[in-house]
């Protein structure tokens, strides 16, 4: 880099924020705490990676003077923090000085260390077996409705991610931690090819940060070991989890004896109040079904208790079911406001939660929670 480059704070910050989530503070390889910056004629892009997930964010900028192509690496977190701390649209000047890169803006001057761009470990590209496009909103909705149900650091490593699969012309996203399951799907799958991949948890979370609610499509390429997703503004590449996702369809109750109509907001608010008297450790609550009434109770080790009643259309035998309240609230967080149904067979079988209204993105979903023994 011979000549200084002139940019604005915002054209750096936008793409940087897209990729920074994957850049971890404590890295085994020092270069992984850096981001790779590339400046070409009229674009600036950053790549961040943890060697499992690689993210690229790009922004346009207009340069008064012709710009040579430059590629270098800079400490990611520090660069983001500097840009965030500068005023909006502040002008920034970047130039190389000996072994360092200098960033100047107004009366501020930062000298940053740099590591050779050619040492930056980008994930090797592979050919795609399947390629299709999908609207960002649809993809985002598929992930949003299932992400909370992925396992975290489970020994069953294949649960620490999200299944993306095609069955009978539907595109399905599914996640389960062994206690509960979420399935979201789009009829009329955007590809006729078979897909059956597990995207690791971290990749899913980062992808969610990249996706916006725009109608713009993204291109999805699935290879043997990777999934790549790209839009004009970003690209995402993640390794896949090599494992067998359990047959989740068999835990979804097919025929249920009891089906109850509930209002999502009413149930959610009742649970939020009951939650106050649940302790950090003790998350079990009781659903008591009696004629015309659902009574929800929580107790804590201090022997305090909370009780909420919701009128329901139920006239069978009294029945008690225990639930982990966190699982219920995660589910209701995902189900949109409005009518919903709760379907079940008994206190020791999985319980099905579904919204009765259609999601505006055309994505449908269902949730299954396994009860707790009382």
């Amino acid at each position: 880099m011979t000549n200084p480059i002139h940019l604005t704070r915002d054209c750096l910050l936008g793409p940087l924020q897209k990729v920074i989530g994957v850049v971890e503070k404590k890295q085994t390889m020092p270069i992984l705490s850096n981001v790779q910056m590339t400046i070409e004629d009229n674009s600036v892009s950053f790549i961040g990676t943890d060697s499992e997930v690689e993210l690229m964010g790009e922004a346009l900028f207009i340069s008064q003077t012709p710009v040579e192509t430059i590629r270098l690496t800079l400490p990611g977190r520090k660069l983001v923090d500097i840009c965030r701390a500068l005023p909006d649209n502040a002008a920034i000047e970047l130039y190389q000085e000996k072994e360092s890169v200098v960033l100047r803006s107004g009366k501020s001057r930062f000298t940053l260390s740099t590591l050779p761009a050619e040492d930056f470990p980008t994930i090797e590209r592979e050919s795609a077996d399947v390629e299709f496009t999908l609207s960002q909103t649809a993809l985002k909705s598929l992930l949003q409705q299932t992400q909370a149900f992925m396992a975290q650091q489970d020994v069953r490593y294949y649960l620490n991610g999200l299944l993306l699969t095609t069955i009978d012309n539907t595109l399905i996203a599914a996640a389960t931690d062994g206690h509960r399951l979420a399935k979201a799907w789009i009829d009329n799958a955007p590809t006729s090819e078979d897909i059956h991949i597990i995207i690791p948890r971290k990749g899913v979370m980062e992808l969610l940060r990249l996706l916006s609610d725009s109608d713009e499509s993204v291109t999805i390429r699935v290879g043997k070991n990777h999934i790549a997703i790209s839009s004009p503004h970003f690209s995402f590449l993640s390794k896949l989890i090599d494992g067998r996702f359990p047959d989740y369809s068999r835990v979804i109750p097919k025929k249920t004896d009891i089906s109850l109509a509930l209002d999502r907001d009413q149930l959610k608010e009742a649970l939020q109040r009951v939650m106050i008297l649940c302790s950090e450790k003790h998350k079990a609550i009781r659903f008591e079904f009696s004629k015309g009434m659902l009574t929800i109770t929580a107790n804590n080790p201090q022997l305090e208790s909370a009780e909420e009643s919701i009128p329901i259309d139920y006239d069978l035998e009294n029945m008690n079911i225990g639930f982990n309240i966190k699982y219920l609230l995660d589910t209701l967080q995902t189900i949109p406001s409005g009518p919903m149904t709760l379907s079940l067979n008994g206190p020791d079988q999985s319980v099905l939660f579904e919204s009765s209204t259609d999601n505006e993105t055309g994505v449908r979903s269902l949730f299954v929670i396994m009860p707790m023994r009382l």
Partner: protein
Amino acid sequence: MSTRKIIHIDMDCFYAAIEMRDDPSLRGQPVAVGGQPGRRGVLCTCNYEARKYGLHSAMPSGVAVRQCPNLQLLPVNMFKYREASEQIGDIFAEYTDAIEWISLDEAYLDVTESDKCNGSATWMAEEIRAAIWSRLTLTASAGIAPNKMLAKIASDLNKPNGQFVVLPEEIADFIVNLPVKKIMGVGKVTNKKLEAMGVVTCGDLQAWDLPALQESFGKMGGRLHRCCRGEDESAVRSERVRKSVSVEITYPKSLMSVSACVNEMPHLKERLLKRMNPVDQSIAKQFIKLTFDDFSKTSVEALSTLLSDDLYAQLLKIGFKRSDKPVRLVGIGVRLAIDTAEDNGQMALLGE
């Protein structure tokens, strides 16, 4: 640190002993508990008959079956072992709160403060082993010593079904001929290094000064220097997770009826609540215990997540009916839920 009294209790072939207790036809035969040979299983434990064939824990089951073709290899029934372990823990709790579990079948007890058996740790160990036999029909071995290291070494000396005491004044004599490989943490590598130095017994090791040992073994050097002199200051770290809370009262004049027992409830419950106050675990069960005037005992428990007075009254009725005799002791308590997914009642969605 003033002199402590530590008991190391080690159950004899715990898993195998439980299986033999529950299926007498296994007695006299070589028995092991562990994974199946076809699935790369290993032995968790085996009985003394099996050990005659050279079998030992952590041995691949395939090798074990080849070496001992008539081996009775049983699947692991962790629930059963855990239950037995909890019952053993109840016995320990009668002597001290300072209990450090090493595994389901092994624990350290610090009984320094206990005034049971006139403060004799040797007698406490005898009683504990006798109680384990009478309540669970299982045998245990014990080591009694002023610290954990010596207690553990001692429990191995009269195994099975025996105990060994190292008194403070006997430490020097006890340790001098002890092979260094008996020290916890001295494995193959360290032992080889020590052998090369001409060190076989702790007495040999005592000839080496601290700087020399630190030079050769780093941090371990300091430990070796202390251990070969029979010194070990490490405390008995009692588990933070409590499994139950209970209170009991022995009455100077026996209670003659159920209603007399039920009348004692408010007082007992007040004391129980006080003891439960610092516990942040949820209740899994309520239980009562009764001792009758002929010293026969009974206890009754029921699933519960609340502390219900009515339930205690019911349990007292059931317990009383079993003997229908005057009652000298009434106890009430709760079993606590242990917060892991399998124990807190959360059921699994996917078949494991």
